């Protein structure tokens, strides 16, 4: 696997390339969908930018909350050391929550129906996620458990000589499958009067099942609290919330 890709003699970081390509491709596809729903290009650019920015802040905030204790954070702040804010990583679920909040606020400000934005954007979230996971595969991070069977991969970041289960590739494929399901659902409901959040509920339901299952195959570190990882606990809560939302929708209809 390759941390850097050689393009015309330039060493381009593979993860950064995948991350940015995912953002640009999904942005393009969302704007194209938005045109069909009558949302103008400028409004869409603002909503996408605001959503992504709040998503990244949310992802970072959740990472900080699960990584540092309040005492540790206070210690850093007292010493005027704010590097803990930029050090380390992000958590996808924090990004999802932040993204939903960012979308709600920006849609409200621009007087656009959040449901219209959902139907444009939600099917392409798993596509962006899949491309990001390919970046992880190339860099060798977010790897699976130690494994020496078929399709085992090395981790260039760790460079420890061990082989790992290619969970990043599995997650990428599962994300593409989720995207196809969402696109088929959107095509089926497109001509109807959409006033509920069916496509978002469907995505969260499918993603929570996928994430809960895949966490068992991750081996990049000891993860979480008690038996399950942090993401698995969030997946369980999300799954229950989605089922409750579906039951509520059925009763309402």
């Amino acid at each position, binding site marked *: 696997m390759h941390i850097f890709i050689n393009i015309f003699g330039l060493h*381009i*970081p593979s*993860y*950064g*390339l995948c*991350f*940015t390509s995912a*953002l*640009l491709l999904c942005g393009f596809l969302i704007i194209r969908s938005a045109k069909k729903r009558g949302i*103008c*290009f*400028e*409004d869409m*650019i*603002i909503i996408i*930018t*605001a959503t992504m*920015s709040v998503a990244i802040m949310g992802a970072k905030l959740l*990472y900080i909350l*699960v*990584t540092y*204790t309040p005492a540790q954070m206070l210690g850093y702040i007292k010493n005027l050391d704010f590097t803990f804010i*930029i*050090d*380390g*990583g*992000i*958590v*996808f679920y924090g990004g999802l929550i932040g993204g939903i909040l960012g979308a709600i606020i920006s849609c409200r400000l621009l007087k656009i129906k959040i449901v219209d934005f959902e139907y444009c954007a939600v099917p392409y979230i798993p596509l962006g996620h899949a491309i*990001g996971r390919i*970046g*992880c595969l190339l*860099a060798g*991070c*977010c790897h699976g458990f130690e494994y020496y069977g078929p399709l085992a991969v090395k981790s260039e*970041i760790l460079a420890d000589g061990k082989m790992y289960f290619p969970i990043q590739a599995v997650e990428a494929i599962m994300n593409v499958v989720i995207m196809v399901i969402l696109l088929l659902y959107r095509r089926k409901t497109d001509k109807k009067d959409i006033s509920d959040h069916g496509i978002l509920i469907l995505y969260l339901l499918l993603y929570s099942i996928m994430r809960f299952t895949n966490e068992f195959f*991750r081996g*990049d*570190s*000891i*993860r*979480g*609290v008690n038996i399950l*990882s*942090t993401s698995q606990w969030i997946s369980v809560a999300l799954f229950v919330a989605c089922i409750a939302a579906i039951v509520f929708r059925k009763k309402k209809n």
Partner: protein
Amino acid sequence: MAIAAMILGIVSLVFCWFAALWWLWLPAGVAGIILGALGKKNSSSKQGMATAGLVMSIIGLALGLICFVACIGCAACYGASDLVRYY
């Protein structure tokens, strides 16, 4: 708004090559995109400047993200392991 977008776009494009100045080009790029889009939408006379600001902000952000985004998801895993030791 169009002029502000242009300036922010230039700032983002110029400083995106320096990782240590992420606090400058990242918010400048985000603000440049939002102001550029608003400028295109609301202003009839400075459309060209707003578009230029928008495009430069997008390019600056894209270049900065390509060069300096590491695989940040992984570090969350290591962070979670600290939490387990704490409990």
